[in-house]
């Protein structure tokens, strides 16, 4: 523990009893670094939409006044990962899609929660700059250093909004350090704001490497997907490719962990393709279950069109399970240099035979032509809790030493 590290984490995403996986990577970061901090407090600014669609937040001043009064008297410090303290700070937001209003609301409600006083911590690390980052900058104490990490997959939509774009530029200007979790985000932000490109740095989401499977899978028959059931993840494509592979080997099965609005359609597709008995829909799973799921399957398959960082790919390899994943941005970066050892990458392509061919090639050479243990060690050095914690400490301490 470092007696000088008093840290506040400000985030719009953090697991709660309703959605236990939302912002699990933020909790992982907290768990990774908490042991090295004298004090670590998390401020969870969860969005609470109110009012009529399109109405401004101040349309009903009585609601706004009441919420400010409640925030000032309703703090119940909660226990969270690593012995850190968690404050739930519901942020009333208008029902609109303008990011600038959500950004303003985040800063406003954190200020109300703090009673107008600044955050006490001299180090503030925020997640999602447009909301958590702005709230941190507007509520940090004078002289405090404010860092932030961008994870968001909605950046393109945000930057199309002029006011939000200008706010983002200001955030980049004022932040003491600005981190991204993957190459796609790095390239996007550097291209949009070239005058801030030198400020961008990588920082990884920490992954638990503690419990690998006892022995590598003998045959790649039990497939696993851990992904939301939405268009971007292309689960319909996965099911069709799975059906074609199953035509060649009736022993293979597919487990789908994750939920989403496409679930009914995907279940219907599974029935239409005649593979209902071979496909299991698990629904949402708790983050704590993921490592066990990875270890109890033979192959992790991921068909996403775009990823900012390949968390689940690293989780699969941390469990010792080979991967068959699309070149979706984040996954490419994670597997750079260890593609063959880890499993197989394949292109994002509408033709399911691309996945089928990749699977057959991987199955042909596994296990002699893969080395998951080596891939795992390679990733452990970059993404383990210890490695990511040291990266945070190096950033926080280098500025403090100046």
């Amino acid at each position, binding site marked *: 523990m470092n007696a000088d590290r008093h840290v506040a984490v400000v985030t719009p995403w953090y697991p*709660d*009893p*309703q959605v236990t996986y939302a912002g699990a990577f933020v909790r992982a970061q907290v768990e990774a670094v908490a042991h090295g901090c004298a004090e670590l407090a998390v401020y969870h600014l969860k969005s*609470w*939409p*109110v*009012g009529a669609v399109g109405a401004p937040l101040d349309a*009903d001043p*009585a*609601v706004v006044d*009441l*919420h400010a*009064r*409640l925030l000032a*008297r*309703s703090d*119940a*410090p*909660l*226990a969270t990962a690593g*012995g850190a*303290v968690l404050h*739930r700070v*519901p942020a*009333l937001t208008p029902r609109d899609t303008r990011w600038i209003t959500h950004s303003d609301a985040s800063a406003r409600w954190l200020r109300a929660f703090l009673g107008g006083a600044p955050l006490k911590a001299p180090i503030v690390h925020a997640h999602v700059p447009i909301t958590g980052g702005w709230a941190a900058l507007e509520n940090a104490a004078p002289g405090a250093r404010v860092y932030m990490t961008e994870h968001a997959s909605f950046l393109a939509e945000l930057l199309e909004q002029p006011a939000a774009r200008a706010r983002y530029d200001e955030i980049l200007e004022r932040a003491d350090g600005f981190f991204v979790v993957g190459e796609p985000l790095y390239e996007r932000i550097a291209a949009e704001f070239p005058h801030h490109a030198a400020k961008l740095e990588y920082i990884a989401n920490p992954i638990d490497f503690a419990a690998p499977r006892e022995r590598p899978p003998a045959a790649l028959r039990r497939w696993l997907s851990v992904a939301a059931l939405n268009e971007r993840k292309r689960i319909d494509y996965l099911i069709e490719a799975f059906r074609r592979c199953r035509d060649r080997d009736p022993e293979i099965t597919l487990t789908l962990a994750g939920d989403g609005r496409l679930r009914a359609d995907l279940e219907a597709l599974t029935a239409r393709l005649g593979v209902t008995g071979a496909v299991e829909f698990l629904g949402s799973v708790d983050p704590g279950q993921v490592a066990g799921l990875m270890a109890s399957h033979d192959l992790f398959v991921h068909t996403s069109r775009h990823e900012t960082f390949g968390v689940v790919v690293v989780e699969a390899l941390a469990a010792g399970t080979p991967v068959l994943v699309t070149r979706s941005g984040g996954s490419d970066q994670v597997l750079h240099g260890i593609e063959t050892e880890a499993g197989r990458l394949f292109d994002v392509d509408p033709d399911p035979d691309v996945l089928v061919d990749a699977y057959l090639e991987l199955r042909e050479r596994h296990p002699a032509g893969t080395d998951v243990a080596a891939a795992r060690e390679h990733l452990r050095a970059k993404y383990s809790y210890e490695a990511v914690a040291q990266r945070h400490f190096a950033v926080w301490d280098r500025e403090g030493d100046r």
Partner: protein
Amino acid sequence: MTVVFVAPKSVWRQALATETRAALDAGHRVRLLAEEGPSWDETPLDERVEVQWSGATAVVAPEPALVAVVLNRIPLGVLRRVGRGPLRRPADAAAAWWRRTVLGPSTRRRKARTRALRDAHRRAFLAAALADGDFDWIVLHEPQAVELGVDWLPALLDARPGLVTTFSFEPRTEDAGA
């Protein structure tokens, strides 16, 4: 203590089931003011929770009889009959156009009236359910608890400054020994 969870729309049912159980396990008496609905079957509550259902889902703005007959049943009934013959496609298209163009605006107005009626019903329900003051701790579990609290909560906070208010019931730092 007696903890009352205020969840007039019960949007986060999984959390309500988890947190009410946690409060019970911590030795509290637990009341819940909630909205009924079939989704509760997926997230059952502990039987020790004292639930008061709002009945808001049964509140619906009535459709005027004349509108129901003249604009809804007669024209759509005629188009259904016509559609049984070889004119099925044009009849279906005409029915879709009728629903969208003629019935659409009145349906939207009726939905808005239903929303307003339900909110008024929820406000009255909360005021009545909390009138006895039989609680020491209020968990305002969702945005609507704050929105619908403007009529009764400020006065309650003035009258009972020692009343505990939170937005959730989760393990506190002292409970974890932190």
